[in-house]
């Protein structure tokens, strides 16, 4: 496909060529429905092949069916120059140096004509151009590690990111911010919590639920909050920094192993599960909600352990699940399976033989709960006791996704299932807690008078 006709396929492509016009041509198009004047825009690759998109003089885009086109006359050309106003990020020797690592996602993005989608783009200058407040907190350097959407993050990127974090810390950085797509931010936060241990500085993950090309975006505020945390807080852990409420008020700082994306689109999608967040952050201050976090240190003694075994899977149990699901994992050489079981951690009896098979094959099988809140407790019912006989190991209150990345990490380090078990059940970064506080499970139910009262006015 020639670049001059970005995104156009047959039959539209021929119509453009026959009329001697291309993308960015300013044209008058005669059609059976009348004449249209505007600039030909690139066509989204996922859109159909029989329309030409033009930007009318009034700023609107419209599509014109090629079978209605009689003639296209070029009257000029106007190419769009898409550029975020860029200014040098100011340097202040009195301010801490912060590194923003980019992995992709919509934290800083712009529009792509061809796909009609938002694509990531950020240099310190671009960021300063769009969020100048960042300079109030730090001197910022950025490095684009990857340009992938959240769902395409995986072991390769986790390992690479952990490595770069280690280098940055050794080179004396004061704090690290990681821009990340939100869909799998909690997976990455969890694995980095294991791969990067004993960090002397804050490692803050951030993203946005509304892309930064829109005025209501949460991107700017999330960036400000995360940069402030990296620059000023004494919380030297891997955390996720995202909107607390849907209002533009404050962020919550969630521990990397206890956080989960809980809504497909809300701004306040990230919640700490089974515990309370570490802190609240706004433009002015960081307010810790607990004191048991690891403190910032001046040494550089970070441990990077980026081992990872990819042959690990999560199985989300459902009634009437057939053993062939587990069998296929066994047959495909999987070394570890995390089950998200019902209730306290159960599956049905028909799976027992295949679980036995897994046990015999030396496959590590761990149990988590699909209720997300609460502990696996396999002694209460007979089912649980039987399953433990079959080698299924309960993981206390580890979240399923956390157990998944931790199992990959553990199996990456050793083949010895005893050692794997020891790694799995020894809390490293708060992934298993000894107790679930009373306020660790709060899902307010709308409609109840006291909840409605709470929602009535913004709590400032």
């Amino acid at each position: 496909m020639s670049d001059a006709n970005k995104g156009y396929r047959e039959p539209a492509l021929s119509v453009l060529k026959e009329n001697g016009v291309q993308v960015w041509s300013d044209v008058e198009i005669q059609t059976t429905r009348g004449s249209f004047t505007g600039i030909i825009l690139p066509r989204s690759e996922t859109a159909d092949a029989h329309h030409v998109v033009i930007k009318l003089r009034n700023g609107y885009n419209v599509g014109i069916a090629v079978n209605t086109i009689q003639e296209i006359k070029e009257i000029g050309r106007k190419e769009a120059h898409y550029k975020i106003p860029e200014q040098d990020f100011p340097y202040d020797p009195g301010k801490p140096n912060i590194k923003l690592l980019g992995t992709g996602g919509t934290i800083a993005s712009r529009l792509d004509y061809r796909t009609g989608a938002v694509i990531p783009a950020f240099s310190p200058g671009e960021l300063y151009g769009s969020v100048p407040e960042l300079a109030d907190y730090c001197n910022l350097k950025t490095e684009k590690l990857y340009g992938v959407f959240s769902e395409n993050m995986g072991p390769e990127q986790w390992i690479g990111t952990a490595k770069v974090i280690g280098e940055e810390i050794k080179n004396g950085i004061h704090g690290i911010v990681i821009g990340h797509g939100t869909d799998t931010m909690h997976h990455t936060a969890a694995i980095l919590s294991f791969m990067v241990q004993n960090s002397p500085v804050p490692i803050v993950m951030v993203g946005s639920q509304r892309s930064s090309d829109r005025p209501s975006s949460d991107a700017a505020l999330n960036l400000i909050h995360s940069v402030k945390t990296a620059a000023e807080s004494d919380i030297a852990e891997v955390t996720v920094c995202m909107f607390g409420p849907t209002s533009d008020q404050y962020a919550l700082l969630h521990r990397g192993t206890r956080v989960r994306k809980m809504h497909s689109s809300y701004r306040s999608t990230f919640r700490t599960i089974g515990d309370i967040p570490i802190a609240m952050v706004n433009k002015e201050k960081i307010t810790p909600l607990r004191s048991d976090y690891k403190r910032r240190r001046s040494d550089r003694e970070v441990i990077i352990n980026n081992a990872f075994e990819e042959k690990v899977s999560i199985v989300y149990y459902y009634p009437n699940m057939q053993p062939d699901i587990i069998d296929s994992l066994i047959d495909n050489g999987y070394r570890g399976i995390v089950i998200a079981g019902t209730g306290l951690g159960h599956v049905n009896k028909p799976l027992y033989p295949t679980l036995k098979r897994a046990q015999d094959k030396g496959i590590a099988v761990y149990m988590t709960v699909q209720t997300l809140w609460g502990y696996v407790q396999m002694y209460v019912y007979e089912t649980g006791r039987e399953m433990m006989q079959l080698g299924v190991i309960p993981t206390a209150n580890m979240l399923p996704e956390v157990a998944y990345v931790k199992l990959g990490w553990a199996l990456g380090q050793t083949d010895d299932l005893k050692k794997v078990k020891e790694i799995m059940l020894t809390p490293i970064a708060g992934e298993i807690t000894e107790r679930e506080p009373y306020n660790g499970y709060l899902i307010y139910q709308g409609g109840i008078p006291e909840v409605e009262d709470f929602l009535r006015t913004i709590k400032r």
Partner: protein
Amino acid sequence: MPLLLKPFKEMTETDYAELGLKVGLEIHQQLLTEKKLFCHCPAGHYSEEYDAEILRHMRPTLSELGEYDGTALMEFKTRKEIIYQIKNETVCTYEIDDTPPFMINRQALDIALEIAMLMNYKLVSEIHIARKQYLDGSIPTGFQRTTIVGIDGWIPYKDRKIGLIQLGLEEDSCREVSDVGHTRIYRTDRLGMPLIETVTQPEMHTPQEVADVANLLRWLVRSTGKVRTGIGAARQDVNVSINGGTRIEIKGVHRIPIIPLLIYNEVLRQYSLLKIRDELHSRGITAETFQAESANVTNLLTNTSWDPIRQAIKRNEEVHCVKLKGFLGILSHPTQTGKVFSKEISDRVRVIACLTRLPNILTSETTEETIDGFTSIKIRKTVNATSRDALILVWGNKEDIKTAVQEIIIRAKEAAIGIPSETRQALADGTNGFERILPGADRMYPDTDLPPLEITESHINRLRENVPPPLWEREKKYRKLGVPEHLIIPIASSPRAILFETIIDKYKISPKWTARYLFETSKAWQRAGLPIEKLTGEVWELFFSHAAKQPALLEKGEELLEEFLQGKIFDLAQEIEQFIPPKIKESELSSIINSIIKNELPNIAVLEKKHRFVMGKVMEKCRGQLPAKTVNQFLWNLLRANGGKNE
């Protein structure tokens, strides 16, 4: 104050032509759909109550073509906290921008396409949803989802065509509750309701023609029966410019009759601003030579007795003085009816610097008693002002005062350039006030959340069958049919026009009778508070189909239907079917009565008794053939005319 133009009432078409008046209309009309445009919330449910509040700020972003929009930057300067009041019943997570849009409401799209056909638009083959930035917070996303369904339409007016630039389908915005200081509050019930935007070419020659065309467009869309009516359902924006002036958008015109005065006042304002510019140029003040400076003069005013500043100082605010070099007399130059140039500055300070407590400025050209002469002299000295300079005092908190001073200087400098591009708010007195800097095409960019949607030929053809004949054709037809002149437009623009025409065609009822029942009598019943919604299309068909066979039912119908509405008749169908038309003509009645009086009536002195006697006799003969009411009336008239004599 010298009058710059003739008074409003004396302006002629020639006067406006000489001024080079250009006016275009943008009409926003809500569509009558069950649900909103991009989500499944019910449309048209309004409430003053709310269940929750959320807070947002707006930041400017890049447009598709890569530049920040002027308005965007202005709104960012204002740093408003936007609060949305949410009622669970009418708003879901879509409106508050926590859920992506659902597919466009096909009912709304179809209505828009039908109206586009009615107005002779060229229809697009594929609609693309665009985002139009609104940083004032009136839409929580910061943009309005909008799309174009047609371009280059027209409607006939007088002996010419008025061109229509585009027909947009878009989501409605929030209703503003208040805007004080840095807090603006919006109600969200209206948000997201589908509306169409009709944009005309500036082809109207006088303010009155603009009002005519606005009415025409309103009637036209109403004739489909698929648009909302009532307060706020249709809102007009008027774009005005004169020779040498600038296109100014006056927003939020709720009443069409006020349009001519609004236009006159804007013409007057632009004319005056051009005069001001000429005056400044003649003094050697241009954009390049313009000079202004400012100083903090708070400490000179700590003892002032003028209340606005005294209160400001009490609140620990600062007072700054802006000197506009060579501006003597400019600030008090008239602009609109009853307004002077300093109002333009005060408006900017109010909107952009958020100094909403009025008065927010004091000028050296005020004629009122304000600060004392001695203090004035000290202030003049502080800013080195000569007698040819103008001064403006402004007060506010540390942050806002900076923006205010900046804005005063910006607006004063613009006076030397001409008329700044602005969106202005229509006021009830026919004048207008600053709302925001006029946004450009830069604020449009594609909505990446929704794919383009094809409008196929077959779909268009299917819709075309629903399109009612255009208003102007109905007008001609009705005139030919002999519909009373005063009812032609109301009927032609009514959604009941279809019913009206059906009854005439199908039942051959005279247009006069049909019009009277459907439009006049119904309206009278409505005014009397009767539940006219009971008069459905089926009820009318029932009535008129019988009236076709029994024309006398038309005479009787008013009484019958009124009783039905009052709840006195339960089974209307039965009443109508059992209706027996009078078989005796009124002329015959008079001979029957006369014969009774002559031959049977004994000598009775009291008129009432005489009436009772005759009535009884007449009804013996006419029962079932004439209503008693008719006989009764007729008899009274006769007896009174005869003075009660037996003749």
